[in-house]
């Protein structure tokens, strides 16, 4: 379980930057990860998530800045305490599940008996028992990810780093995968996970929102939602005009999903009344309005899009 009291530092990024030629992949990135938490690195493709994680596991060297794990520089942190699951499937497709696990485990000098015990344990945890002799190439996307996870867990790492493990995996497997992560976390493993999916961000204890190599915000999901200064409402309306709310004074942004609008509005005590009046004046349909709490997606878009920056709300 994660408690915010008595936190101990696990990872510290201090002003970390990394360029690839003219491309600034990571730009003065600073943040901390505490022991025992599930920490999410959330942002769209190309935000720099993979580079940040590769810097963290010392696959890349930062141009400036430092990263420490457990108070030592990343390259000094013992490899056996570190589990890493790259974004691209990085086990051997022409080896079976158990051959892959045995090979990687043996590189950590685990003895045969330990390997046998733990691999059974891991395979039953990830639900891969019974597939031991299947070639990794012949596994589904979700199973491949579970195999990679099992393999990375063989040394019982204290810190598990996963780079978009659920990318391109079917929803059912994604759910299972997260259940496994929660179980691991309960056993005390600190988890750093990157994901482009905003709904997965809500599953993390703390989230760093990143975009174009920069940290936007880092906090718990509920705290991040506080940042969202406006109001999110969902409106059911019998209209096929996606731009129906574009002239409404209170509406800052609207997205149309068939007969349903997702609106960002300013905060106003009589908001429902105002929206209904607007619709009435426009000879529009009756509205079915309800408040909803902002999703991570709302928060992220709010932080990214300058047009919708906090100033806009403050000004009114």
């Amino acid at each position: 379980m994660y408690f915010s009291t008595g936190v101990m530092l696990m990872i510290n990024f201090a002003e970390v930057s990394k360029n690839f030629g003219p491309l600034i992949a990571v730009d003065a990135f600073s943040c901390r990860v505490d022991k025992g938490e599930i920490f999410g690195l959330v942002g769209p493709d190309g935000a720099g998530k993979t580079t940040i994680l590769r810097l963290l596991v010392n696959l890349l060297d930062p141009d400036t800045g430092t990263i420490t794990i457990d108070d030592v520089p990343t390259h000094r942190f013992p490899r056996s305490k570190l589990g890493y699951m790259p974004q691209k499937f990085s086990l051997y497709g022409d080896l079976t599940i158990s051959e892959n696990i045995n090979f990687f485990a043996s590189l950590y000098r685990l003895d045969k008996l330990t390997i046998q015990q733990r691999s059974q344990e891991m395979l039953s945890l990830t639900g891969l028992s019974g597939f031991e002799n299947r070639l990794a190439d012949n596994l589904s996307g979700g199973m491949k990810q579970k195999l990679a996870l099992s393999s990375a867990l063989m040394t019982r790492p204290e810190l598990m780093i996963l780079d978009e493990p659920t990318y391109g995996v079917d929803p059912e497997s994604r759910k299972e995968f997260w259940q496994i992560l929660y179980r691991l976390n309960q056993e005390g493993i600190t988890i750093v996970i990157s994901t482009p999916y905003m709904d997965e961000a809500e599953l993390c204890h703390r989230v760093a929102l990143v975009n174009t190599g920069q940290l936007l915000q880092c906090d718990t999901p509920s705290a991040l939602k506080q940042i969202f200064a406006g109001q999110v409402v969902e409106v059911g309306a019998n209209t096929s005009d996606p731009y129906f709310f574009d002239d409404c004074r209170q509406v800052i942004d609207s997205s149309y999903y068939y007969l349903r609008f997702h609106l960002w509005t300013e905060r106003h005590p009589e908001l429902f009344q105002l929206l209904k009046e607007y619709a009435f004046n426009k000879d529009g349909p009756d509205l079915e309005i309800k408040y909803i709490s902002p999703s991570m997606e709302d928060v992220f878009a709010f932080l990214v899009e300058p047009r919708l920056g906090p100033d806009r709300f403050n000004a009114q």
Partner: protein
Amino acid sequence: MSRIISVIKKEYLQLRRDRLTLILIFMLPLVQLLLFGYAIQTEVKHIPTVVFDQSLSSESRDILSSFSASGYFDVMYSANSYQQVTRYIDKGRAQVGIIIPPDFSRKLAQNESAPLQVIVDASDNMVANQAIAIANSIGLIKSQQILLQKQPGTSLPLDVRVRPWYNPDGITAYYMVPAILGVIVTMTMVIITAMAIVRERERGTLEQLIVTPLKNYELMLGKIIPYIVLGYLQISVALLVGSLVFKVPIRGNILELYLLTLFFITASLGLGLTISNIAKTQMQAMQMAFFVMLPSILLSGFMFPRQAMPDVIYYISYIVPLTYYLDIIRGIVLKGIGFSYLVGQVSALLIFSLLMLGISTTKFKKKLD
């Protein structure tokens, strides 16, 4: 050590499933040996020859029969004019033209020097050199015979007796088969290992390997050792074909040959591994492997004698491992010599191997960029 064994096991498992590569590794020496062994004959016999005999005497017939009896010249056409001879050679129907002047027998009878002309199509060097040498010696031998006939009781002032050692019959296969064996082994070894690291990089498996405690040298050795075994298997197949099909005698100690071959295999593997560490993609690795292999085969003395090379190139050929191995394998197989004669070659290969393994171990960075 245990990690090296893990890598070896992994390589073995992968190789076992890669049937095509395995088949190629065994078929290569077989097919190459048969092809090269039979096809490469540096000795050119049965050169098509056109004759323009204007003398039509018993003397001219005698000299012509000497030419055809040598086995090198097949008199296939007889011409009636110079133009006709030229046409045969221009068209490529004949590569040699023999022209005997009308006064050939008259000059012989009068103890004058009787000229006869041999035209050689020198556009093909190998054939031309051979034809010229044989034609000259036929001329000499015939002259001697005629001289001795005219002055009975005298003997020739010099008597050179040549003894071609190690390969008295001049069988090309004896000379070529051991060399081809060396070429095949170095080719497969370099190409296979050139892929070794770069393949892991391209497939992404290197990313996972790097985060483990696996050390550079452990990875390099683990990658090399399984292929040493393969190299030996290849050599065994090749030696078997060589001795069974081409009847190449193995005069030296075969154990010694196997032992010294180790240095050649590691040199080739080291070279391949270095390529693999420099190349960014498998495509690049393949091209680099060929870029290195072709000149090393040509410079090694596999086909063209190194003594004939210009000085600069001759010295360059000293950095080619195959150069040394050809000395070793031809030495042991044909001459029956042993290690004590080959210390220099073996040390050269050892230095080359260590250099290459050193470069690839230090060049390999546990980083992705």
